[in-house]
Each structure stands twice: as C-alpha cells, then as structure tokens.
C-alpha cells in the first residue's frame, strides 16, 4: 500500500479523534479530509445552505463619518452651530478628546446628498460610483457598538470582543468552512494607506489573528507593495527553479524514509505541505498578474501607474481575482478614516481612494456572475459625532468618534439589494428604529454563509466561545 495513502487514513483517524488541529494546513483540508465539516446533509461545512460562499470585507479603518457619507440629515442645517441638545446626548459618555470641550456645536455635513438607483437610497456626492450600485446594496444605518476608541472598537467589530485574544471573523469562517483552494490561503488580508489623513490610526495583527483557534486559521497578509506578496514566497537569490525542485525532491525522499521508519503521521502531512508551498510559489505570482486584465478593467478600477490611493484600487482587483480562485475570505484594510479635524478635505481624499474601485468591484463581480454568491461588506469600527471637534468654521470641522450609530452596508450573496435598514434621530446621534449591534451584524454575515452563529463554537478554558459572544440576532429584513 502506498505509504501516503496509509497515512492519510491515519491522519483522518486522528482527526476524528479530535487531534486534527495540529495536522491540518491550508488546503490540506480538502486533500486529506472529508469536506463535510458540520455533519448533517446540508452541504459542505455549513449548518444550512449558504447564500454566500466567499467574502470580501472592505474595512474602512478609523471610523468613516456616517453623516457625510450615508446618513442623510437635511434638517441639520437649521441647527448649525447650536449646541447639541442634552435631550439627544442624554449624558452618554464621549471620548477624552472632546469631553473637555465647553461646547458641542452641531456641524451639518458640507456635502450634498442625492438619491440613486431604483430604490432611491441617498448617498453623499463623495460616493458617485458606489451610489450607482445601491440597488445591489443593503445599507444599515443603525449599526452600533459600545467602544469609543480605535483599538477596542476595531478589535470589537473584528473579533467580537474589545479585549485581545479572540479570533477574527475571517478566522472563524476559515475554521468553520475550510478552504476552497489548494494553492492559496483561506483568509487573506490586504492593507492600504489612505491618502486623506497621513497621521491616521494604526491597525494590528490581532484584527486578522486566530486567537485561540489553531493558528492555521489566521489571516495571511498579502502585500502588494515591495517584496513578496506572501512572506518568504520567493526563492532566495541564487536558487532557481531547478535547484528548488531538486531540493524538494531530496527533502521528500528523506522524509519518506523517516515516515517508513517512525510512522508519525505528521511526517506525511509535512510532505504534503512542502508540495503545497511549491504550488503556492506559482499560484501567488499568477494571482498577482493584473497586467493580464483588460485595459478597460484596469481603468474601471482606476488603477494608475502611480496610485495615490495607497494601493486600495489594486487590492480591490486582486480581491476579485482571489474570489475567482476560491479564497474564502478577503479583508481589505484601508487606513485614514479618522477625521478629528479638517474633515471635509480628508474625507474627500479617502473617498477618492475607495469610491471608484469599490463601484468597479461590485460591477465586475456582477458581470462575472460572482456577486451572486460573494458577500461584499463595507464599513468601519464606528461613526462620527454630529458635533464638531475643535472649531466649527464655515468650511471646516472635525468629528469625534461615535459608536451609538453608524452606517455599514453589504451587497451580493443573499443580500436584499436596494434596502435601507434602521433609522437614526435628526442628529444622527441615537438609533430610533431597528438597532443592529455589531454582534447582529456578524451573526448575519455568518448566517449568509450558511452558519448558525450560535453553533460555531470553540472550547477554550472550559468555555465554548463564539464570535458573537452570548448575543447576536440575524438581521432577517436585509436578507433576500
């Protein structure tokens, strides 16, 4: 009997005995293990039939202003420069950055809004391209979080807890559903720098970390600047393809000799992982070859030779290429959305970075029939205050962090396009209808992927942990 076959069986056996975690690698899932991850006859890896098989999460790090982008408040202009009524603030806590201000003057958005599409969703003039796609978008204006500062808020929305140590959404999805590709990681992260704000907030590896889940589920940073897209992907200087192949053959032969003698199934896994690494060395550069795309596509995304958007447009196009290749979860992190001051200038820069590429991405996915089962998510860790931080002048204002309501949207697989869900008060300060906590938001994402968020658990220190902690209700009205 072929030793690999023998050991595949052993690995399977170990797996069923609950020890699989340490033997499983990216892609190894599909070769060594059965696809049925949750049991029952509901299709691979899900609790019920999924509407979306893949995710692109466009995370706008820093906290984009819902008042200047999505949550249209025409009535605010008559309250300009008035103090925020205490009936609205209701004594709620605000950050240390504005809690010392003697006044909280209301700052209406300087930007015009208009209605788009058949559904008539309002969007800011800053988002002409995304605006055109509103018929595919479910906009939620009533997302809320308890966090009021960046570090806890980004950690909260990405991992379901303000405190570090929990797995990110993408890691949970990788853990629950495994990978659809043999040559690429299941969960990929791409980072870009905003052009609107050069002193913006940092981000952290924990935002795509695997927490207490096996580390194979952590997001793999895919870098589009200088250097290898995947760390250590390229052969070192002086080692060409022939040498590499000869080395790998030698390593494999020696590993097989060890396997024959020692019988540790981990050796069989390692043999497979070296082959996979070799395949990745081809698959990743192929993925990166965006020059094979048509000029029309490149123009649609607005990819320039010397991008001012910090690489966001290119990352959007790469995200689509990853979807085509079966990557489960792609997270784009675009920095620069923390507009404490000089908001009008900064947010214009930020929107110029993202509007055109995101519009193009949605159209591109749709044209290729991918949007049907790809879920696209857009938003940041919180919104921004209706009152100005610092001086309010005719052409300028800043806004502090605001977690009591903010806008996010989703489009694609299973999403009811053209919907607007949730309402906020006249000041865009409190939710007046249909609140969606970030746990609800995350529960909905998992639901669309065919996962019951209450049943996707991992036991750690005696407790069964979930992404949604002990909360989370699926937001049914935005589901098609």
């Amino acid at each position, binding site marked *: 009997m072929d030793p690999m076959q023998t050991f595949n069986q052993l690995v399977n056996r170990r797996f069923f005995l609950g020890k699989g975690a340490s033997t499983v690698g990216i892609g190894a899932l599909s070769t060594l293990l059965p696809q049925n991850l949750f049991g029952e006859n509901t299709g691979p890896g899900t609790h019920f039939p999924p509407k979306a098989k893949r995710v692109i999460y466009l995370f706008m790090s820093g906290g984009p202003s819902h008042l200047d982008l999505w949550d249209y408040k025409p009535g605010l202009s008559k309250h300009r420069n008035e103090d925020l009524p205490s009936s609205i603030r209701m004594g709620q806590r605000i950050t*240390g950055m504005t809690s010392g201000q003697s006044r909280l003057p209301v700052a209406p958005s300087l930007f015009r809004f208009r209605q788009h599409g058949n559904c008539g969703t309002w969007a800011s003039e800053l988002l002409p391209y995304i605006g055109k796609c509103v018929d595919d978008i479910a906009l939620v204006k009533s997302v809320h979080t308890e966090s009021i500062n960046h570090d806890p808020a980004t950690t909260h929305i990405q991992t379901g807890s303000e405190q570090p140590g929990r797995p990110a959404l993408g890691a949970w999805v990788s853990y629950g559903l495994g990978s659809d590709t043999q040559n690429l990681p299941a969960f990929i992260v791409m980072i870009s720098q905003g052009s609107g704000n050069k002193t913006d907030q940092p981000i952290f590896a924990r935002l795509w970390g695997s927490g207490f889940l096996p580390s194979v589920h952590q997001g793999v940073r895919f870098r589009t600047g200088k250097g290898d897209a995947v760390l250590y992907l390229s052969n070192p200087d002086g080692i060409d393809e022939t040498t590499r192949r000869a080395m790998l053959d030698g390593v494999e032969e020696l590993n097989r000799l060890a396997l024959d003698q020692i019988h540790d199934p981990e050796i069989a896994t390692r043999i497979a992982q070296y082959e996979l690494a070799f395949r990745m060395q081809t698959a990743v550069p192929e993925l990166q070859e965006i020059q094979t795309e048509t000029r029309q596509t490149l123009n649609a995304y607005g990819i320039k030779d010397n991008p001012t958007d910090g690489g966001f447009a290119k990352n959007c196009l790469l995200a689509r290429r990853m979807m085509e290749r079966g990557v489960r979860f792609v997270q784009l992190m675009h920095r620069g959305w923390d507009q404490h001051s000089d908001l009008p200038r900064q947010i214009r820069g930020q929107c110029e970075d993202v509007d055109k590429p995101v519009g193009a991405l949605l159209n591109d996915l749709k044209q290729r029939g991918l949007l049907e089962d790809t879920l696209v998510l857009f938003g940041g860790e919180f919104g921004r205050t209706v009152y100005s931080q610092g001086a309010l002048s005719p052409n300028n204002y800043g806004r502090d962090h605001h977690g009591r309501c903010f806008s996010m949207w989703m489009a694609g697989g299973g999403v009811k396009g053209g919907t607007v869900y949730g309402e906020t008060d006249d000041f865009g300060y409190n939710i007046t209808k249909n609140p969606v906590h970030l746990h609800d938001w995350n529960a909905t994402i998992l639901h669309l992927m065919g996962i019951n968020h209450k049943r996707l658990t991992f036991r750690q220190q005696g407790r069964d942990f979930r992404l949604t902690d002990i909360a989370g209700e699926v937001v049914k009205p935005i589901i098609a």
Partner: protein
Amino acid sequence: MKIRTLGICAMINWKLLLFGFALFLSLFFGLPPRQTNAETGLNEQKPSRLISFQREIRPIFSEFCFTCHGPDANQRKADLRLDTPEGLLESGIVKGNPKESDLYQRLNHHDPKKIMPQPKLGKNPTKAQIGLVGEWIRQGAKTETHWAFTKVNRPPLPPSVNTPNHSPATHPVDRFLWEQIKNNGMTPSPRADKNTLIRRLTLDLLGLPPTHAEIDTFLKDNSPTAYENLVERLLASEHHGERLALDWLDAARFADTHGYHLDTARDMTKWREWVIRAYNSDMPYNQFTIEQLAGDLLHNATLDQKIASGFNRNHMITFEGGAIPEEYLNNYIIDRVNTTATVWLGMSISCAQCHDHKYDPITQKDYYSLYAFFNRLPESGIGAVGNSAPFLEVPNKNQTDALSRLDSEINALETKFKNQAKKSEAEFGPWLSRFKERKKPIWEPLGQAKTHSKNGAILTIGKDHSITVTGQNPVTDIHQVIWKNKTLPTGIMVEFLPSPDAENRLGRSANGNMVLTSAKLEMVNQTGMATPVPIRTVYASQSQRDFPVENLLLPGGKGWGIFPDVKKNHKLILDLGAKRILSETDEIRLSLGYESPYSGHNSGRFRVTSTDLPNPISFSTFPESLNVMDPKWPTNASKDQQKLLLDWFLTTVSKDGSVFKEEIAVLKKKRAELAKTFPTAMVMQDMANARDTFIRIRGAYDKKGDKVVQGVPGMLSPFPAGAPNNRLGLAQWLVSRDNPLTARVYVNRIWQLFMGTGIVRTVEEFGSQGEQPSHPEFLDWLATEFMEPTHPAMRGKAWSTRGLIRLIVTSEVYKQSAIVSLDVLKKDPDNRLLTRASRMRLPAEIIRDQALAAAGLLDRRIGGMSVNPYQPAGLWEELMGREDSAKFTAQFFVQSKGADLYRRSIYTFWKRTSPPAALATFDAPDRETCTVRRARTNTPLQALVLLNDPTYVEASRKLAEKILLNNGNTQQRLEYAFQAVLSRNPIPKEVAVLTRVLEQQRTHFQAHPQTAARLLRVGESPFNNTLDHAELASWSILSSVILNLDEAVNRS
C-alpha cells in the same frame, strides 16, 4: 440521539471530547464498548466496575446541567444546584434506583417541557452518558468534590511492573505509567539510542542542539552514569534558564511593546534577565512565585525582588488619545487577575468577571476580592510612550559611576559659585539703581499695532494687548503683527495664552496643540522694502518632546510644539542682539508661521511685548512676583524677596556668576541626559491609601456594585494564618501546602514540556470543564513529591524545578524511543498512555536557534536588550506608519547588525501588533494575553520560511563552510552535516539521496558561477572566500535540505 458525522469544527466540540473520552475509558480499563439499551440508555448488563463520580459523572453534569443548576446563583433555575453533594441529593435521587430518581427521569423524559436539559439549549447528553448516570445512581450515587479542588495527598507507589523491553521498574514515574500501560495490555517502547537521547535532552533542556564534541563524548562514555552525567551537565548550563524562560515569557505575556494602539516600545529587559537568572539558580517555585507576585512587598525588598514583581506589569498598556483612564485601569487589573489565575491556579475564572462562575464555585464576589489585591497601584489607566509608572531606574555599574562623577563635579562648581557670589554682591547695588532708572517694565506692550492672517483667520487685539484668533481655522497660516517704535528692540516676547474660542487651550487644532514653524522679524521701510532682522537665539518656557524651540532656527524645521501642555501659558523669547535706532517711518513686522503638516495647528491667542534690555532671554527667569519698579523697592521688600532678586542677579547678570552658572547648567544637562539613558523596569507597588474595589455589574467598568475587600476564594484552601492581607499574602496562599492547585498545575506544565501533553491535557483549565487527568494518582504523587521531596532526584529541595525536571528526564518513560507501530498508533493515537516518546515539533524559537547553532552563527550572550533579526521590510510600517511616526518608538523596524543578528530567539524584539513574522509562522503567540499551551501546526507557510528566510539560507551557507573546513571525504562530510543538525549519522539510503542532490548541485553551480556567487551573498555574514564557490554553494543547498527535514524541526 444519533451521533452526527463529525468534522473540523466538531473536533473540539463536546461530542468529540466525549467520543474520545469513551475511547479513553475502554483504553484505560480494557473495557469492551458498553452495551446500552437503545430506548433508555440504561446499561442492561451488570457492570464490571464501579462508576467514578469524579471522572465520569461530574463532567456530564458540568457540561449539561451547571449552566442552570450550578454555582451561578443568579442563573439558577428551580433553586436546584447539582454542583454540590447536598444539592445533588435534593434533586430527587433515589439511591440505587435510577428509574425512581427524578434527575434520571428528567434526562429521559418524553415530554419536551420536562426533559432536561431543555431542547432549546441545543446541548444534550448521549444515551451512553445518560446510561452512565443511571448506573451511577444504581450503584448508590456517591459524590465527591471536584478532584482538583481537594488537597493534594501522596498516593502510594504502585508495585514494580515487569515489561518486555525493560528491567523491572524502580523509578516512580515508570511505576505509575507502566502500571497503566500494562492494564491496557500494551508495552512501553525500548529505550531510544544514544544519538536520539542526547539530541532530545539537549533540545529539551537547553533549546539548542548538541555539538559534535558533546555527541562524541556521550557516545564514548560507557559508564553506567553516562546519561545522568549528561543530565547534570545540561541542568548546570546557563542556557537551561533561557529554555525554561521561554515558556514562562509566554505565560507572563512578556513583550517589548505596549500592544494597544500605536504599540510603542517598553523595556522589561531586567525582568526577563531576572527570570533567566532565577531558573539558572533553581530558585524554588514557591519563592519564584512570591517574588514575582509580591517581591516589592517583601521585608527589605532587594532591587531584584522589586524587579521580579514586574510579572504583573507585562500586560498591555494604552495611551490612545481619548481613551478613558478608568476603563483601561480596569482592563489592566482584569488582565492581572486572569493571568495570575491561569498561571497558578490553572483555571479561567474570567467568567466570574461578569457573573458567578457557571461551572466552578467561584462567585463574582470572589473575583473582585482577588481584583482588590491588584487595585492598589499608583497608576493611571493611561500609560506613557515608554515604561509607565510605577517603574524603577536600574542603572548599570558604569552608569552609576558616571553619575557620581558628574555629581561631584557639580558640587565642586556650586561651592565655587557660592564663594564667587559673595564677591559679586558688590555689583548688585549699582545695577539695581540703573535698572530702576529705566522706569518702565521689562517687557513693554507694543502700543498701536496692526494684525494680519495670511489665510483668512480673524485677529483681534484686546484691551490686555492680547491678540485673539477667531473665524475659520485654516490648514496652515501666518499671523503677522506690525507696529512702529523708535528703536528696534533687543528682544521680543510672544506669550501664547488659552483662548476662550479654542476650549481655553492654546492651539486651535482638535487636540489644542499648535506648531509654530517659523518666527521672522523684519524692518519695513516706507517703500515697503523689508529688511530681515537676524534672530540670535530663541527661548521657550516649555517644548513638546521632539518639537524643541530650536527648530525655529532651522529653515524648514519641524517647528515648535506644546503638546500636551495645551492649557498653560507658554513664553517664546527672540533675542535680537543690540538695539538699533529706527527711522520714524519704519515699521517692525513680526511673522509667526504655522505651516506644519498638522492641519490647523494654529495659535488661538497670543500677546507680543518687547524689551530694550540687553540679554533679553535672561529675563525669562526674572522673578515676576517682585514689583521691582515700585519706587519703595527694596526698602519695603522682605529679606526673602531681596534674596530672590539677588540670586537671579548673580546667576544671570553678574559676569563671574553667570560663567559658573553656565558650567553648572552644562553639567546638569549632562546629568539629565545620562539619567535618561538609565534603563527602567516597571514594577508593582501598593499605595498606602488604596482605591476602593467594587463588584462591576456584568463586568462593565463603569457600573459599580457592592464594595468588596481583598480576599481569596476560600473554597480552595484557607488564607494562611498570619499572612498579610495584600499581594504578599495572596502569593503565600498560592504556595501554601494546602492550596490544591498551584503544585498540580505547575508540575503538569513541566510534564507537558517533556512529554508534549499534560497529564491534564487542558493545562490552562483544571476546573469542572477541563479534561480529566490521564493519570490522576501520578499527578498527585508528582505534585506532592515536588512540595515534599523524598526521591534522590529532588536532592531534598522542596519546590525545586530542577529536581522535578531531573526526576522526569531520568525515567525510562522519558528515555523511550518515539518509533511507533501502526498497531499502537491505531490504539492510542494521542499517546496518552506514553507507550512511546512523543515526537514534538520544536517551538519556533528553538527551530531558529538550532539552525544558528549548527551554522556556528549563534551569539550565546545571556540577557540584554531585545534585538531585531532579519524580517521582511515594511511589516510594522504598513500597520503603524503615520507622518508623525518619528515621535513614537517601535514604529520603524531597524534591523540589528553584527552579533545582534544572531542572538537567541528569546531576545527577539516582540512587537505585539506585529509579532516576529517567521516565529509567528511556527505558532509563537502574539503575547497579548497569557499563553500556557502553544499550538503545534504544520503548514506550507512554515516550509516557505525554512526554505527562503535569509536566516535559514545564511545558516545553510555557514554550516556548509564548517563542513568544508572539516576535511574528509563526502561520506565523512555528510556525517558531519547530519550530526550538526540531527545528532546522528545518515543511513546508506539517506547517503544515496544526499549524494545525488550534492552532485546535481555541484554540476549546476559549476556551470553557473554567477548564481553560486549570488547564493553565497545571502545574509550579512561574509562568506569564506578561500573556499570554492560552486562547492560551497552546493553544500549550502545540501545543508538547507537537512534543515528542512521533518526530523530537523522535530524532537523525537
């Protein structure tokens, strides 16, 4: 209920655990799978054994019942609790008769409203489990307290066991384990060969591979104590402390950065050195515990003991703008409580942060009573860019010497100055009369002045001559003030004042800061022609870090900033040199530029005054409280007031005095700069008047419930009599003989280190929800032996980590071969019976250290600051990069040079938000929170690191150089190479493969000399140019093949 197909997710869920558990039982007790009645789940056959409440029944109740009928009083339904013996008896158990017992009936009930657990909870026991409960009731429903909460007692040693491959067991470890193996009809493996043993032992004890000479010595040592000698040599090595410290650093969440937000650098080097030293001196674990939890509270605590207390300062710290101090203070304390509980009690008690624990008898009040011990530090929730208070300065010898040298120089000068001052007093009288003759203030207001803003702000002059800036706040601006005067002043003072229009802060930006990038003074004549007046020097009463006022003298400089003192008046003085007469039509124009990249960082209010006195900056220290211009002064002044002015005069005006003063100032500056370089160590410290501690309702930091005082969960063991009611008492309680957990938890973790898996696999969880120990009696024996040593290996030293390790590694169980037959693999795939040695993938750090050691590159210095070995460029900058990154630390990755590139990995700089990439790929944790069990994964990304990371490519080349410098034929060289990494010689089949690879590569590189040269240049160490390039390149490839072998990254 049918068991569903199980898969990835389910592998850790309860069904599998129980499945595994059931298999376990049959393994351990040699039982056939139990036949159960499909209807009732009741075992119809007479059981052949007694059901263990502890091991079999309690876990079922914990899993399915405790949520509603457990320790949490608020969630308890029907006033029924099943976690105590009393509660269980009240649940309607009829001993001996399951069918009459309500509890049993409820588990089987046909009525969905009555069946327990309620179906909506989505968790149901299997028929087999219900059957076990029934059987337990039938046998009399005996109960016991959860095993881990009962005091540890020494069980008797099992009888010696004969096994095929060994002489009869004498070693206690073997007696316990072989008994279990024999009961399961299996046999232990034979002892591993000596090559395997020396590699295993050296990697386990030092985290390094043995050298050729060490292997040779061991192989040649045929004495009966050869192995023991090896053990002693390794235990005495300084690198042993480094190996043990590695796991302790994970547990202590040690890192080099703060973790939150900008993730700037901290420096806990001294604490890390303390840990390594403590292990190297085999500090008893009870003392190790006390010093780390409460070293600062010990009587006459030494500097070292205070440094040790830094254990609980290793948590993450924030200084994010806008963070609420109280919220973070709460986070830090929670982290200390949870880490302390996990490390010493082996329990997560974090559930009790929000409510009474659901599974174990820990109440929310217990939780906050522990919290109170850690709520006494003089700290704010907002830390600093670097080490945050409280911390100690820990200068080294050179530094303290330099400091005392400076101090004596300063003292000498000050004496000289005092003597000189007496002489200078004579000059004072005449100077004062001349000064008063001026009859005007030092700083005069401008009189009529005009103002202008370049970018449209409104500048309004008020009655107090201050200029308030209102209207729009442009991104950048230049404020101008224009006035006339008969003479050009010698100095200009600009006072920056809080503006009511800017939240009573000085600047108009969001954070109240302002950044002045230029200050220009010009004479403008009638025709509008401007002549710049050079500024000799500038002075500011205060400057922002990294934005010193001297920046104003640099063209295109970063500017002068004031953050964080944005509410306090700041003075800026420009020294213009000698005064000059101006023509009547000339105007003076002052331009203040705010043209930094920081948007809207403009001044909100300022006042300009001028002086004609020479040396204007000296007046910055003039005692303003003195109304010197009063004609009656100094007659109406007090002695003190007169002295104040005299002192000022002596230090600033008097010629001789000012010379000394300048010299003293230079020395004092030197002293301050020196002190700044002193390393510090964050430590614990208790305030005399501690904050009150309150229960936090549902864990929310701002929702305070009842007040509590510090105390320990008494259900575990009583607080030691006479112990102080503070952290020291807490530490003493943890290491008291009565504490049921501390010793069990620690010996279990050390066992895990050598066997791959703990006796309790969930090393982090000993509570009801943790796994049962595979060898409960042995665990208790080992824990007792640790506290009350009897075995010679312990050398009579209680709590000796070294003794414990000696005890473990001298057992036959440790020395077994790892080779496993397919048959045994099927029977015990997880090796819970330890019929063989566990093969373990090496920890990330040891994989790297091994390669560096084999290559002869390793720098073996112990201790010191963290270093930055190779890492792909840009990893930190992508996450953190901002235009003002230079203001903070650890924002730019600067690769180390020379020997620092090759230090042991325990010294690698650990940036929490971007942990060292290659180490993280091999499961090194991010160190954000406490880790006591690392994952051991096997991924393609690991292959890429070993194949392509310059660390390993360079190590391959250096190893190749060693091989080639070691004369011999190919066979001998291959043996040398194999020994360097695998501590053994290759077998003929391996030699064949290696020779083939070598010959292929030799041909290749001989044909491509350029390629060979490129390979040899990877890494910063130079290559040995005396060696043939093609030969060196092909042996480099061969070395890389060896470093990539599964065997190389495993210890077996």
